[in-house]
């Protein structure tokens, strides 16, 4: 067994400690899975914006189904793909709460595509965290709509071909055509710098919501070391080399800054 050094931190200042918006529950993700990383960023943003007690998390169905156990906020667990509809229902009753969904690519891009697009079109004022790991993780590594061409999964044993599986779906590119979107970005978490970028986007997405600007979504190009059959670090490399060419990082829409500027210019 590994030894655990006991250090008394009472008289010390934290450079970093677990976010308040996070529970003590250990996360069930596989080692090195970026789901946990994304969770942490969201929790940090909730802390920074001081909105923990008015935030509602909508967990979806995928490996992150237990998100409600990890975020120390009110929470609802939504049916597979329907988190944006559930969020809509909640937000329409409770416009002052901060509502976010946390969805995988199977959940959001396969079964739940209509719900997320329509929520965007309605300019629903909530935030979506979209974890794209190009695979159905929870159900054992089947093809997702976002699976890369040639990528082997448990249901594309020869690799995804256009003929049998179609093209990868770029959700952000679709959503970027919709005027109800207030903030839209694709980020990844393959290095400390990328992680900081991702966090900034997540923060901006929440700010868009707080400012009532409409729909916000951050896609996080993520890893599934388990079903990719790669070590955690290799998986990050795979993102850089294979995923990003298909899913280039970009801030597609940012009305937050525009709003801020508008405020700055207009006074009041």
């Amino acid at each position, binding site marked *: 067994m590994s030894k655990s050094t006991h250090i008394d931190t009472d008289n010390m200042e934290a450079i970093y400690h677990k976010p308040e918006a996070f529970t003590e529950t250990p996360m*069930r*993700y*596989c080692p090195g899975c970026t789901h946990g990383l994304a969770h942490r960023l969201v929790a940090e943003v909730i802390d920074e914006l001081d909105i923990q007690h008015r935030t509602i998390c909508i967990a979806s169905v995928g*490996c992150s189904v237990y998100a409600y156990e990890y975020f120390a906020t009110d929470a609802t667990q939504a049916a597979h793909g329907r988190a944006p509809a559930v969020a809509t229902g909640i937000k329409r009753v409770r416009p002052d709460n901060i509502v976010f969904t946390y969805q995988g690519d199977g959940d959001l891009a396969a079964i739940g595509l209509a719900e997320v697009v329509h929520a965007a079109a309605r300019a629903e004022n909530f935030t979506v965290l979209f974890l794209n790991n190009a695979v159905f993780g929870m159900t054992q590594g089947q093809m997702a709509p976002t699976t890369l061409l040639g990528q082997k999964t448990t249901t594309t044993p020869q690799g995804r071909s256009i003929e049998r599986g179609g093209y990868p779906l770029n959700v952000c590119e679709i959503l970027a055509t919709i005027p109800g979107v207030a903030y839209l970005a694709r980020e990844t978490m393959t290095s400390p710098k990328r992680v900081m970028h991702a966090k900034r986007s997540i923060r901006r997405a929440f700010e868009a919501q707080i400012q009532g600007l409409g729909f916000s979504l951050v896609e996080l190009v993520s890893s599934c070391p388990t079903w990719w059959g790669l070590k955690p670090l290799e998986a990050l490399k795979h993102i850089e080399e294979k995923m990003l060419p298909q899913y280039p990082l970009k801030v597609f829409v940012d009305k937050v800054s525009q709003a801020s500027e508008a405020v700055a210019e207009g006074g009041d």
Partner: protein
Amino acid sequence: MREELFMAGTGGQGALLAGQVLTQAVLEKGLNVSWYPIYSPEVRGGTTSCAMVITDGHVGSPISGRPTTVILMDARSVQQHIERTAAGGVALVNASLAHEMPPVSDVRIVEVTGTDIAIGLGNERTTNMVMLGAYIGLRPVVTIEELARALEAVLPERHRRFLDLNIRGLQAGLETCQEATDDT
């Protein structure tokens, strides 16, 4: 003959594989058999177990509330499952990882230092084979040769290089257990 076997361990310990190897061997021998996996609620790091029925008659229920033999590969499995053992049954315990036994009556507890033996053989991962070897020492439903053949059939291609190690595990387990049996 009707043997109801329950086998439990932590995720990575290979209880399922050991069960499948045994199932294959039993099938080859011409007995009837059923096997099914039970996943604990915890997705990762939870206990994994499987339940088997081995019989020369009709399998009937693949489910058993009181298995005649339970193989418990770590401390948590022992805590959670040893109680299941049928009256007069056997609990085969990996004593390398499980040190405390909950009180059970009318159960014969056989302790095998499975992990230590496996490490001794050069790879902790073969603990499951050590335990399986020990099991056929206690319940000779199949021979070690039959198990070895089954291993060859069941082991996925990419693990074929561990075949030898695994057979040595079976052997070591069988031996240890025969000793253990003698001891009791």
